[in-house]
């Protein structure tokens, strides 16, 4: 995914290392009477990977959707790239969302389009990053080769396995080289080998393109893998490595953010709910 071509350079060249990529300030999201997010605050800096753990219904996916304005925020403020992004009109959000890639839980590939058309979609439909068809085609091929699906260009999503669809969704999320990536339960419902492949891709993307990412998951081992391994571009494999501050964990429970810290702090936690996630991963 890296490229020396200045035209193909990442969209995040303008961001400094300490710049906030996503900030929540006391964000609350309600669906009717139900509180999906309750007074959630955090700040993700450039280059960080956030692992968001939590049981089903704890508000993890809602948090990602609130970040890019897919669900309305009842109170509090959301900042994307240090710019206010709370309940903006949809037309204004389109420009901001073009800098964010999101891989949805069930892939959310468009059934009526081929994999190539799905992956090309952001490059042909987002006004701020629109590319000419030839240029888009080359980027699509590159993105699909990155996820090792280079031979599926003309296939439809229904012709792919669940794991392949997730990889195609990741290709669609990274095709425009956004500076911020949101992965919503990328390993949910997958067998352990396929889940490992998906996490490998997330690590590869992070290490080759220095992407900031939020990864929602209910599997602690996914986060542990991200925190303790890096991609070796020479061997194409993962090497054990631990960089103290780049991977941080968050734990959600019933819409509340109950933990934020690094892996050591997470493992040292005495909270029985957190303990359940960490212990059950073994």
């Amino acid at each position: 995914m890296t490229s020396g071509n200045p035209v193909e350079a990442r969209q995040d060249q303008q961001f400094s290392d300490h710049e906030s990529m996503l900030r929540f300030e006391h964000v609350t999201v309600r669906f009717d009477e139900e509180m999906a997010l309750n007074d959630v605050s955090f700040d993700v800096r450039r280059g960080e990977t956030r692992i968001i753990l939590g049981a089903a219904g704890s508000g993890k996916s809602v948090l990602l959707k609130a970040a890019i304005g897919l669900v309305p925020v009842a109170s509090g403020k959301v900042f994307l790239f240090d710019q206010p992004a709370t309940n903006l009109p949809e037309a204004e959000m389109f420009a901001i969302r073009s800098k964010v890639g999101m891989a949805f839980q069930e892939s959310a590939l468009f059934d009526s389009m081929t994999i190539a058309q799905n992956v090309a979609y952001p490059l042909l439909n987002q006004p701020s990053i629109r590319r000419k068809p030839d240029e888009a085609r080359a980027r699509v091929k590159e993105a699909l080769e990155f996820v090792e699906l280079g031979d599926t260009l003309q296939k439809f999503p229904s012709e792919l396995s669940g794991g392949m669809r997730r990889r195609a969704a990741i290709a669609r999320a990274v095709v425009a080289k956004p500076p911020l990536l949101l992965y919503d339960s990328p390993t949910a419902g997958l067998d352990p080998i396929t889940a490992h492949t998906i996490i490998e891709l997330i690590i590869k993307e992070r290490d080759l393109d220095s992407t900031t990412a939020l990864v929602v998951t209910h599997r602690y081992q996914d986060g542990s893998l991200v925190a303790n391994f890096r991609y070796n571009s020479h061997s194409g494999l993962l090497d054990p490595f631990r960089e103290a501050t780049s991977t941080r964990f968050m734990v959600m429970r019933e819409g509340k953010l109950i933990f934020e810290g690094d892996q050591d702090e997470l493992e040292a936690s005495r909270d029985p709910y957190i303990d359940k996630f960490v212990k059950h991963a073994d």
Partner: protein
Amino acid sequence: MFDFLKGPVLAIQEFYLLFGSALRNLFRKPHYWDDVLIQMDTIGVGSVWLTSLTGFFSGAVMALQMGHALAQYGQTGRTGQVVSIILVRELGPALTALMVAGRNASGIASELGSMKVTEQIDAMRALGTDPIQKLVTPRMIATAAMLPALTVIADLIGMFGGFIVGYYIYALQPREYWSTTWKALVWSDVAEGLLKPFIFAFVISLVGCYYGLRTSGGTQGVGRATTQAVVTSSLLIFVLTFFITKFFVSQSPQ
């Protein structure tokens, strides 16, 4: 006290907002003409056989009943006249719209509903596309263009169905049948016969889209949305038929 009214009032408000957005998008870029053509093919061309058969048999049945009734007054020759007026003014638009509602309001609701529950609508928004612009407006344009055309085809084939019955059962002469059929119609009948399907097209497409886009609750929710779309659009077709007919009746000279 009036809590039970909140749901319906909110639904009407959301429906009007969808209608307003879909109409506004007619004058805003981008326009998805490829999608309009695909929908015209699906909704229009795909429904031709269904609406043609409906038209043929409704015309035939009407001729059968009317020919029998008019024979008592020695007026069998007027069968074509009655068939054409009822078909063009009432049955053609209503039955064609009901068939298209059954086939396409359900199709639209289930397609959009499936997209909603599989997060494809969210993905569309995340990827910089307004789902109303991309999904609702093309379906609205396509239905508004195709339903009046389907109605005209159904009317003509219905008249032919009436002719077959008149010719073979009541021994009407072709010239007699077609001349009374033609002469019976005035411009206001044609206007009424075209205005109705044009209005019904908005009802069918927007009701289908509305229920599709508000689907929740997985595959069960998709089934529910599909049923609601067909029931609501069919009901609205009958209600609107009454009011449009009433308007044209009040406008016609005594």
